[in-house]
């Protein structure tokens, strides 16, 4: 093995390629709605003590609707892409619709094939591949746990 060439022979791992799709890397490198918002009504910071990911979620809820939504934070591609896509998807939705999406999204991450087909998830379906990586599920759920904390049934 000492004489191995510097050139690597690549890796053909469909599950990894599924995990790191272009759309996910794009949201990681160019996160949407990573900014301040006006008239913030709800805000929370949650972290993932195991890996150090931190997400702040900011909401402006008006008349039961998410008028604006943004996030800040640091973390891996999965937690940031999930947060970024989530803000795009939830802006303008009613709180009830947002919570329903949160439920579907969580089922998808737990490997439910029907949830992974749900068109209402839009781009978020790109994260379906995370279900094959159980230790990463909590990364994908971090922003959604913030949402639950702010407007979920126990909020």
């Amino acid at each position, binding site marked *: *093995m*000492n004489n*191995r060439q*510097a050139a*690597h*022979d*690549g*890796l053909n*791992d469909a*599950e*990894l*390629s599924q*995990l*790191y799709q*272009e759309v996910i*890397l794009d949201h*990681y*490198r160019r996160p949407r709605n990573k900014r301040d918002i006006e008239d913030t009504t709800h805000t929370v910071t949650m972290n993932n003590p*195991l*890996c*150090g*990911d*931190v997400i702040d979620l900011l909401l402006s809820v008006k008349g039961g609707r998410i008028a604006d939504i943004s996030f800040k934070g*640091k*973390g*891996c*591609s*999965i937690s940031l892409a999930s947060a970024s896509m989530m803000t795009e998807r939830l802006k303008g939705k009613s709180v009830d619709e947002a919570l329903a999406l949160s439920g579907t999204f969580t089922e998808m991450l737990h490997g439910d094939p029907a949830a992974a087909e749900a068109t209402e998830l839009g781009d978020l379906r790109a994260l379906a591949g995370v279900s094959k*990586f159980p*230790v*990463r599920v909590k*990364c994908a759920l971090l922003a959604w746990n913030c949402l639950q904390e702010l407007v979920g049934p126990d909020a």
Partner: protein
Amino acid sequence: MNTTPALDVDRVRADFPILNREVHGRPLVYLDSAASSQKPTQVIRAMSEYFEQHHSNVHRGAHELSVEATDAYEHARATLAGFIGAREPAELVFTRGTTESINLVAYAWGSGLERGDEIVLTVMEHHSNIVPWQLLAERSGVRLRFAGLTAAGRLDVDHLASLIGPSTRLVGLTHVSNSLGITNPVAEIAGLAHDVGALCLVDGAQAVPHMPVDVGALGCDFYAFSAHKMCGPTGVGALWARQAILEAMPPFQGGGEMISEVKLEGSVWAPVPHKFEAGTPPIAEAVGFGVAADYITALGFEAISAHEADLTSYALNRLAGLDGFELFGPSEDRLGVLSFRYGDIHPHDLATILDRQGVAIRAGHHCNQPLMDYLGVDATARASLYLYTTRGEIDVLVDALLVARDLFGGFE
């Protein structure tokens, strides 16, 4: 001059059955020994043999097995005391590990401190050498002070010296940093502590697996370490302290084993070290701990150090050749625990991608959150080497990093 034989790494690897397994269809490349080392057959066998032939409770029954179990347990204590240069086996207290050893000191020795007293630590400490002192600060109002690093990524000894004064009661620091790979000048710092009448506690978790430790030469007062990072089992570790210090300290936990007489009005403590070993101890683990020390001694630290130094410079050379590779800590005069970032790939993503190629590294803050804050990063990836690591495995690591870069479509 004696020349020690070089480490025969193939023979060493044959002692570690787990190194033969595959992960995700690839040969395991275990680069997480700083978190916990793997175990040689010698240790695994000694522990099973203890259970199959000798097990009973220690220091209790007047029957043969109890005598054998006690002998095995006390033999391990003597081995480990010798391993770190303690004068007497009685100076070595078995604990659950480094964390419990430091908690023992913070609780038992720390109970004599009061508001106005100060404890000097460093920003590179593992959480286990920070949080017990924060708990003590909450209980008693002692003040904690933290020494920083130099621009070169080493302990800023001048800064540390400037924090030591008449109120200092203890200086606590790690012997080897679990993130930066540097070895701290413990003897010098113990001297600074003693100049003001303070004690010096050393976290030896990352040193004992890699270098000969002589607590007498270091001149420290407390030395804490864990079995599982030095080829031994989980669940056991040790606290060394000078006998007079241990004798002056109140107990940590109360119960069986640690008393010589119990009356309803009060009890008399057992002599050290038993005063600090309440309850049935981890006997088989202590036996495995002793055999781990014997295993390392038989290989010889000279051979181990030479092997690890060669691997570390090989790894640093190869990794430095990767565009986007950033090492934390100095690149010379350091041990083989390598914290790094690679391009804009988050360490957590790197760990996932490497894992799928059989390569086990750690990602995160490595129980070093204050250090990460100090360095201005939220996380790093960490590859750590040990006596069974090969150059070929470093090559696999480098290839695996290139795969990660490709998956991320290069860096931005």
